[in-house]
């Protein structure tokens, strides 16, 4: 088992951690009330004042915040510090409207790096490691986030960013990269390219750890990556609104540790907004406990997960969230049934004849939604008999139906047909004009 970066905090007894959260929540509420017209207005609308927050449970009296608030107050309407205190901005792409801006003061950048230093230590990384950061640098938080985290633990960073895959593979060999951080779909692409170059990740590189995130991925994909390359694949979580990538699972791989001294995590029923039981699926809601330029109160991040509060085998006492099940806004409604791309992925990755890349296409045929799943046929699954191919199609279709409860067409396509991505994979093409 790996050591701790900050053993005192990471192993803090739960009651003590709760007290710390309570103190920080109370001062946060006072702080945002004093520093932000936006929050004063919101508190007023919700009929709550800082003095009403006496215990941790009182958090439910506070109003929610959402992505739309960040858009509506673009660029810096939710900041609690003047722009002169800001040392960094990150901006998320506005795929569905205005972009959103996140600001950090010096302490916020430090807290962010500290969160990742704990996480990276928990998966066994340290000063002798070499981390290739293959997330985008720039306005996206992935690159710089991992960069600062890895530097904090004394690892050597290769800030390669996205793309130039062949060069990435050469650098990986020449500089003895031991860890890579990127999207899981990019890593799958990298394995393919390495294979074409005659490079085996397992035998020709020193890579032992992959830190994958920025898009939901399934346990089956983890198994595929691990068995194809011999590395250990870890899940990283965080979004720009709450800083960027912040948390990973530890080497026990039993959920992602969300540091309780930094964030108060709630899991709610997305429809009613009521707290769900420990171990029940729901929408994640974060309150930032020690972020100062742009703190967030009860931010509805839109990701669905399950929270466990029992301490982990590794000795860390902070709550854990399970693998992200999808996003509330990634959810497709097909013939009235909720479908998450992550469910499709977990079915496909369990079938060896199906390649690592896939796509969901939704069309409308008259009044009816039609879902087609395109998968690449790989050599392992190729029989030259048509009936074997037809029964493979049937098998994929049947397993999808078993999980999704709706029928899906399955298209077998040639390898390399589905577009590869260097950032977040585009898995869903919805052609419906609703």
């Amino acid at each position, binding site marked *: 088992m790996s050591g701790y970066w900050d053993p005192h905090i990471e192993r803090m007894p739960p009651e003590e951690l709760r007290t710390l959260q309570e103190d920080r929540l109370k001062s946060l509420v006072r702080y945002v009330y004093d520093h932000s017209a936006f929050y004063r207005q919101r508190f007023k609308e919700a009929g709550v004042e800082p003095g009403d927050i006496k215990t941790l449970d009182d958090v439910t009296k506070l109003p929610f915040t959402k992505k739309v608030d960040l858009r509506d107050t673009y660029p810096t309407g939710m900041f609690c510090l003047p722009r002169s205190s800001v040392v960094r901005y990150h901006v998320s792409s506005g795929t569905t409207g205005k972009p959103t801006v996140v600001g950090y003061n010096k302490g916020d950048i430090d807290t962010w790096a500290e969160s990742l230093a704990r996480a990276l230590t928990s998966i066994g990384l340290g000063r002798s490691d070499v981390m290739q950061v293959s997330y985008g640098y720039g306005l996206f938080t992935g690159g710089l986030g991992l960069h600062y985290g890895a530097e904090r633990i004394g690892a050597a960073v290769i800030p390669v960013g996205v793309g130039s895959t062949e060069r990435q593979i050469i650098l990986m060999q020449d500089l003895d990269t031991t860890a890579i951080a990127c999207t899981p779909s990019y890593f799958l692409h990298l394995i393919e390219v390495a294979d074409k170059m005659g490079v085996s990740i397992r035998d020709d590189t020193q890579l032992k750890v992959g830190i994958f995130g920025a898009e939901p991925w399934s346990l089956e994909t983890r198994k595929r990556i691990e068995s194809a390359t011999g590395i250990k694949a870890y899940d990283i979580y965080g979004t720009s609104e709450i800083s960027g990538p912040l948390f990973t699972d530890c080497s026990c791989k039993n959920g992602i540790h969300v540091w309780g001294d930094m964030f108060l995590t709630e899991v709610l029923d997305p429809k009613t907004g009521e707290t769900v039981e420990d171990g029940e699926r729901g929408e994640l809601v974060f309150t930032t406990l020690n972020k100062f330029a742009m703190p967030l109160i009860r931010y509805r991040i839109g990701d669905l997960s399950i929270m466990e509060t029992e301490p982990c085998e590794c000795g860390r006492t902070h709550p854990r969230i399970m693998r992200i099940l999808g996003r509330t806004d990634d959810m497709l409604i097909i013939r009235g049934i909720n479908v998450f791309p992550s469910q499709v992925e977990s079915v496909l990755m369990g079938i060896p004849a199906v390649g690592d890349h896939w796509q969901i296409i939704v069309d409308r045929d008259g009044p009816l939604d039609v879902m087609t799943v395109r998968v690449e046929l790989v*050599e392992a699954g190729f029989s*030259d008999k048509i009936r074997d*191919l*037809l029964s493979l199609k049937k098998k994929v279709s049947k397993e999808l139906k078993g999980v999704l409860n709706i029928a899906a067409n399955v298209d*077998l396509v040639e390898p390399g047909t589905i577009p590869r991505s260097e950032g977040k994979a585009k898995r869903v093409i919805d052609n419906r004009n609703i």
Partner: protein
Amino acid sequence: MVAELKQISLFVENKPGRMAKVSKTLSDAGVNIRAMTIAEAGDFGVIRMVVDNSEKGYQVLRDSGFTVSMTDVLAVEMKDAPGGLYEIVNALGDNDINVDYAYAFVTAKAEKAMLILRVDDIGKARKALISKDVKVASKEEIQRL
């Protein structure tokens, strides 16, 4: 042990230009197609072919990103006269050997037609055919055609 004749099979989507890509890949590598057939199933199909150099053909197609496999097949000389096919399949049927698929070709040099057979038991099929005086072509003979 006889070196079996290797057929190349590849998975292709049923869309314009795919056959052209396959034949160009082989032609660029100097691989000659002896016989071929396409089995189609709606939006995809399987191309099966016998070429003069199957290892090379397999390799270049694989390197071009195709899903390819090699299958052992029999190349059997067939009399170019009524009853030619019957003689062969009857010998197989009598011995309880199932034919998965078959396709035939004629070459300028050969006086007889060649039948490519994919059967469930290749050793048994060879024995059954030879006992009926049917000529089974070797890998080298196909290469030399």
